């Protein structure tokens, strides 16, 4: 019969056996929100979730 006891899954790299990554997303707390017009231009109603996504600055010597 197969062993069903919970065991960490690992991925052997050379001698080591690191565990797989575990993603963790903290729960979003309620807080102040933008006015609707501002929310539309910011891309979110929630100030902690604003991500400006600025264009990457051009780097010398890097092909586009």
């Amino acid at each position: 019969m197969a062993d069903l006891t919970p065991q960490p899954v690992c991925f052997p790299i050379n001698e080591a056996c690191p565990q797989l990554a575990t993603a963790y997303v903290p729960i979003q707390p309620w807080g102040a929100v933008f006015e609707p017009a501002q929310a539309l231009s910011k891309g979110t109603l929630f100030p902690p979730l604003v991500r400006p996504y600025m264009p990457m600055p051009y780097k010398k010597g890097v092909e586009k």
Partner: protein
Amino acid sequence: MDATQQSKLLEIQSLEFSLYDLHLFLDTHPYCTDALSLYKEYNNMLEETKCEYERRYGPISPGGCGLNEKSWDWALKPWPWNQSQGGMKHVDV
């Protein structure tokens, strides 16, 4: 489309966007009364703003506040995406 109409449309879009973001928040926080009451508030504001818009400029969608007893305005008034072209009609009446 004049500036007043455009700003009314933007108001509708802003409210719809905010409601959608609140919807996503509420999916993971179904008992958050703050979010719930704001959803309710924005939902009422959206209804009002939409009605105001539809009464003045014609229907945004086939039903809603634009419903007229004498004519099917969806077919007669400019469609929302025709507004910027000066209000094309697609049927001759």
